[in-house]
C-alpha cells in the first residue's frame, strides 16, 4: 500500500508541475497585455513609451519567460507568495485567503448534500426497482444532471427571490457573523450547485447497487435469513460504494467549475467570481493563482480517491 501511495503521489506532483507550466505559459503566450489593460483602466491621458517600459519592468514582464516562470514558482514554493494584482496592487494570497473559505463553504455543503441525498436515493431506487419511487427519482436525476445550473439559479431568483420574496437574491454573509442570514443566502446557490452531484450520485448508486444485488454473495445473505436492512447495509452497499467514490471525487472539479457560474449568478464574492472578473481584466497574477489553487484541489482530491480506491479494492493496488 505504501508503494502504491508513493507512486500515486509522484504522479500527482508531475501533473501539478505540468499544470504550473500550462497556466504560466498560457497567460504569457496568448494574446492580451495586462500593462495596456492597466493603462486603459487608470484612464490617464497618455503614457510615454518609457513609462510603459518602467511598468513592465516593475512587474517583471520584461524578463525572459523562463526567468519569470522560475521566479513565480520559486516565490510560490519558498515564500507562499502568489504575486501582486496588477490592477489593484493587493497581494494575491491576501485576496484569495478571503475568498477561498467562501467557495469552500458553498462547495462543501453542496458536496455533503450530494452524498447524503444521492446515495440513499440511489439505494431506494435499486431495492424498489420498477416502483413509482424508482420512476420519480430516476426521472428527477436525469433532469438534474442536465439542467443548466446558471439557468436554474435565474429561475430560483425569479420564484423565491423576486416573486415570492422569501429569500435574498444575492450576496454572502459569514455564518459566524449572522448564521440565519448566511443560511438564507446560501439556500439557492447551494441548491443549484448540489443538484448535479445529487443526481449523478443517485444514478451511479442505483446502477452500482443493481449490479451488486445480482451477485451470489447477496443471494447467500438472503438465503441465510438476514434481514433486508443488513443485506443492504452490510453486504450490498459496501461493495456498491466503490464506484461511487470515483464519481464523488470527479464531482469536485464540477463543483469548482459550477462555482464560477453560480457565484456570478448570485454575486457571491468567492474564487469563481474572482476568476471571471480577473479574466475579464486580464489580471495575470489572480488568474494564475486561482487556476493553480483550483487544479491543486482537483489533483489532491483525485489522489485521495485513488488511495481510497486502492484501500478498498486490492486489485487496483497491484495493477
Amino acid at each position: 500500500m505504501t508503494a502504491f501511495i508513493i507512486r500515486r503521489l509522484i504522479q500527482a506532483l508531475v501533473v501539478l508541475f505540468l499544470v504550473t507550466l500550462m497556466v504560466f505559459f498560457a497567460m504569457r503566450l496568448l494574446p492580451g497585455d495586462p500593462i495596456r489593460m492597466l493603462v486603459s483602466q487608470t484612464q490617464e491621458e497618455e503614457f510615454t513609451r518609457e513609462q510603459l517600459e518602467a511598468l513592465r519592468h516593475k512587474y517583471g514582464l520584461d524578463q525572459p519567460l523562463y526567468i519569470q516562470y522560475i521566479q513565480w514558482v520559486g516565490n510560490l514554493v519558498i515564500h507562499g507568495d502568489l504575486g501582486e494584482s496588477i490592477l489593484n496592487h493587493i497581494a494575491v494570497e491576501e485576496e484569495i485567503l478571503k475568498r477561498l473559505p467562501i467557495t469552500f463553504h458553498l462547495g462543501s455543503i453542496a458536496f455533503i448534500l450530494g452524498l447524503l441525498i444521492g446515495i440513499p436515493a440511489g439505494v431506494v431506487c435499486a431495492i424498489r426497482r420498477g416502483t413509482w419511487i424508482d420512476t420519480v427519482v430516476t426521472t428527477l436525476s436525469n433532469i438534474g444532471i442536465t439542467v443548466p445550473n446558471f439557468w436554474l439559479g435565474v429561475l430560483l431568483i425569479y420564484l423565491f427571490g423576486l416573486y415570492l420574496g422569501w429569500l435574498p437574491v444575492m450576496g454572502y454573509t459569514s455564518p459566524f457573523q449572522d448564521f440565519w442570514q448566511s443560511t438564507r443566502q446560501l439556500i439557492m446557490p447551494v441548491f443549484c450547485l448540489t443538484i448535479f452531484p445529487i443526481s449523478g450520485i443517485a444514478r451511479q448508486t442505483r446502477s452500482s447497487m443493481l449490479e451488486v444485488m445480482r451477485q451470489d454473495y447477496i443471494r447467500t445473505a438472503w438465503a441465510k435469513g438476514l434481514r433486508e436492512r443488513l443485506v443492504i447495509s452490510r453486504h450490498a452497499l459496501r461493495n456498491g460504494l466503490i464506484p461511487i467514490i470515483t464519481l464523488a471525487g470527479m464531482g469536485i472539479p464540477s463543483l469548482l467549475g459550477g462555482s464560477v457560474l453560480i457565484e456570478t449568478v448570485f454575486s457571491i464574492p468567492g474564487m469563481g467570481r474572482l476568476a471571471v472578473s480577473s479574466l475579464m481584466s486580464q489580471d495575470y497574477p489572480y488568474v494564475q493563482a486561482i487556476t493553480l489553487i483550483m487544479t491543486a484541489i482537483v489533483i489532491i482530491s483525485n489522489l485521495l480517491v485513488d488511495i481510497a480506491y486502492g484501500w478498498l479494492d486490492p486489485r487496483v493496488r497491484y495493477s
Partner: protein
Amino acid sequence: MSGEVTLAQEITEVAPRVSELKRFRRVFFSRGVVVFGMVIIFFFLVIAIFAPQIAPYDPYKLDLTNILRNPDAQHWLGTDTVGRDTLSRVIFGARTSLMIGLIVVSFACLVGISLGMLAGFFGGWTYTIIMRIIDALMSFPMILLALIIAALLGGGLKNVIIALAVSLMPGYARLMCGQVITVKENDYILAARSIGVGNWGIMIRHLMLNCLPPIIVMVTMMLGQAILAEAGLSFLGIGLEAQIPTWGGMINDGRDYLLSDPILSFAPGLALMLVVFSFNMVGDGLRDALDPRLRGTL
C-alpha cells in the same frame, strides 16, 4: 450426416440468432425517454437547419418602438430590450448551439482519439508523456479551462470552438487510451500482426473499429456538454459576439428583466435544457444498446 443436419436444425430452433441490428433496435427503442430524446433532437435539428424559413422575424433586426413587448399573436414569446423577436432568436440560437456543439465535438473527438490511440498502442514514454499532459488538462475544471482559453484568445466563434474543443478533448483521449490498452491484447490483433499488418494498419483497421462503441456514446453525451459549456461562456459574456443569438447570452440578457419579462430568460433556458437532456438520454440509450457493460463507466 443426416443426424448432424438434424442437430443443427435443433440448435437453430432452440436459439434463433438475433441479428445485432435487431437487438440494438429492441434495446435502444425500449425506453420511452430515449425515443423522446430522439424526437426532441430531430425537432431542434430541423429548426436549426431551416431557421431562416421557420423564424417569423429577423433575429438581428432592432425595433425600438417594440421593446419588451409581452407575448401576443404577433410575437409569440414577446420581444427583448431592443425589440428583437424572442422566438426568432431562440430558433436561431438552436442553430448556433447545435453548430458549435457538432464542430467542437468533432475536433475534440478527432484529436482526443488520435492521442489516446497513440498513447495506448505504443505505451512506454509515448504513453507517459501524452497521458500526463491529459491528466494535467483534466485537472482543470472544464468550464474554467474553456473560460481561460476563450478569454485569453478573445472570444468569437473560432476561439470559443478552440476553447471548448481543448477542454473536452482529454475525456476522449483517456477513454480511447483505456480501450486500446484492453483491445490490443486480443488474439485477433496478434493474428493481424503475424500476417504482417503494420502498426498503422492495426490501429486504423482493427483497433479503431473495436474501440468505437464507447466513443459513439461519449460523442452523444459530449454534444450536450459542449452545448451547455458554450451557453455557460455566453452567459458569462466571454462567448460569441453579443448580437449573435445564443441561448446562454439570452438567459443573461433577460436577468435584468426577470420580474417584468421572465420569458426572456425562461424560453432559451428551457430550449437549452431540453436539448442537453435529449442528448444525454440518447447517449444512455446508445450505451445500453451498444454495450451494457459500459453502464457506470460512461
